[in-house]
């Protein structure tokens, strides 16, 4: 019973991290129509900035906000100066995808030059304090991840549902051309979307990595998990990403305990195959209209 509860808690916390990655990816895909292969590298950048800031005596809580905002600004730069330039009529529709792939390699090499190959640690004073409730242990970091997760998801939902910009984002994701005719400034919406998506990736990096280490290659797994979740949850569906991400965390955690820990990273791909076979739109997906 204790083991079951603990694995469920672990699963939720892992799932929250996955969701942050997946929501960013799915926003950028649903609205910008680009799969950002460099998403994992922006997660890594968030983590590296956290190492840097905390190394310079910044408190962890301000780092949690400042680092993702800075990375989010980089997201704006990427959208304005790279993605927008390769997303032109006449250029291949694959150009933006290739651009993000190139960005992945470039960023990884830059990290190697700037931060070096040795693994580093995000020194978070709360990471290894734990709350022991007799049968259940929750680390300080798990608590921070959980609280911030709910805050961020709440704010994001409110933003998308209730604000004018959120409405515009939904409109663009549904029909780009009509939105344009309705007078929505599509370029601003793209920029905003990239900022949000990249902000979430970096936030995941800052929140998840205090439990492990940071090196230039850590972005691969979060990207792959994020992509699987986006496919299973339905391309472009924020709700799908939230539900699937948490489910994946739970499945991985429970299966590691009760089936085999060695297959942990396999479940996501298994889900992808099953969903592609039986429900290609994704669990909560809708048909993507090409506009």
């Amino acid at each position, binding site marked *: 019973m204790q083991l079951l509860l*603990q*694995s469920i808690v*672990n699963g939720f916390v*892992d799932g929250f991290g996955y969701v942050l990655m997946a929501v960013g990816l799915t926003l950028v895909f649903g609205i910008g129509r680009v799969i950002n292969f460099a998403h994992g590298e922006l997660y890594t950048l968030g983590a590296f900035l956290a190492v840097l800031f905390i190394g310079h005596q910044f408190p962890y809580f301000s780092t949690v906000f400042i680092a993702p905002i800075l990375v989010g600004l980089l997201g704006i730069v990427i959208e304005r100066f790279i993605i927008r330039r390769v997303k032109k009529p006449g250029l291949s529709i694959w150009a933006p995808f290739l651009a993000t792939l190139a960005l992945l390699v470039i960023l990884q090499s830059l990290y190697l030059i700037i931060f070096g190959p040795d*693994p580093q*640690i995000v020194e978070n004073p709360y990471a290894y*304090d*734990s709350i022991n409730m007799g049968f259940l*242990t929750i680390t300080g970091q798990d608590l921070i991840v959980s609280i911030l997760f709910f805050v961020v998801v709440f704010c994001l939902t409110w933003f998308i549902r209730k604000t004018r910009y959120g409405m515009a984002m939904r409109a663009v994701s549904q029909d780009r051309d009509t939105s344009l005719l309705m007078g929505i400034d599509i370029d601003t919406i793209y920029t905003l979307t990239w900022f949000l998506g990249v902000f979430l990736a970096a936030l995941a990096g800052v929140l998840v990595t205090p439990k492990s280490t940071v090196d230039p290659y850590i972005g691969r797994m979060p990207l792959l998990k994020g992509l699987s979740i986006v496919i299973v949850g339905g391309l472009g569906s924020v709700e799908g990403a939230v539900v699937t991400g948490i489910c994946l965390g739970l499945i991985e955690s429970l299966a*590691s305990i009760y089936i085999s820990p060695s297959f942990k990273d396999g479940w996501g791909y298994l889900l992808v195959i099953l969903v592609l076979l039986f429900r290609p739109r994704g669990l909560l997906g809708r048909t993507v209209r090409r506009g």
Partner: protein
Amino acid sequence: MKKVRVLCLALFVLCSFGTARAAEPVKIGVIAPLTGSQANLGTGVVNGIKSAAKRINDEGGINGSPVELVIYDDRNSPDEGVSAAHRLIYEDKVKLILGSIGSSVTAAVQQLTMRERAFLVTPVSMAPKLTQVGDKYFFRVTATAAMRQKVFTGFVVHALKPKTIAYLAANDDLGRSEVESAEETYASIKGPKTVYKSFYDPAETSFTAYLTKIKSLNPDALFIVGDSVHAAVIMKQAKAMGIKSTILSSGEAGTAQFLKLAGNAAKGMYLSLDWSPVFTDPASKKFLDAYILDYGKAPDTKFAVQGWEAMWITAEAVRKAKGMSNPDKLREAFLATNWTGPRGKWTFRENGDPAGVTTFVVVVKDNKFVKVSG
């Protein structure tokens, strides 16, 4: 491009060590991973070899001939290792190779050196099979997993007296052989009973699932096999989850990097260690002084010491055999080795394994390794 790089490397080595050109140099090949995931280990070994070669040459070389190193990168890949060995044997006409790090690479290189009756001296590879293939010209300047476990398990059973033990090890050659030999020895000396055993993927970053299970079983001891980074992350996560077991670990975690990454979480952990920069015996001091003079700081890992010792032992054997022209004479010289290095006194068995090499048991105290036996 790679050729150019290797050429530059060789050239650099030639320039730095080829100062005394009076006598025909003694050419020694070196194969180690200098790039890729094992680069920090390979660089450590090569740095140790270079420091030793420099001291040997400063002291007049081997019977008046300077040591000349020809160094190639194997990127921890058996294919690259074999092609490096090809170049060393057929192009550079080398008769003795120091290398490599990964046992699979060394085993692949051994196929070639055995056929060509060339010597292969490994400073690091621990796989038992290397000395079981009947290679007369193979020597291992390191203790195997079984040898180290014998010392460590003895200490654990007598001093810590755990009744149950859990194993968490990397799913690679080293992890599997360490756990296997530990389990075997414990079984033979009525040691702790195994309650959990799991192997993690070396690319893993979160160990929560394994540790949750281990915590629920609450074993007296937890034995971890992993490199510095994995061991540090496991220690931190275990501490955070409130695991109370005594933590034991293999020597791979015995590095400065591990102490830095693990911080307070490593307190009270026991390791079996071949060598650590905290050792202060005369041989360790001589090595450390030389290393710090050459590279400006103490080595991070024990790998530099392994390279240093392999180079000195080889030089002694070549000196005694008066050159490398007669392989059987050189083999006799290796078998007659009686040399004391930082890790203790070195002598060899007929099969090329070391006889009676020391392993130390250390405990982590105030973020330092402190010897408790050995």
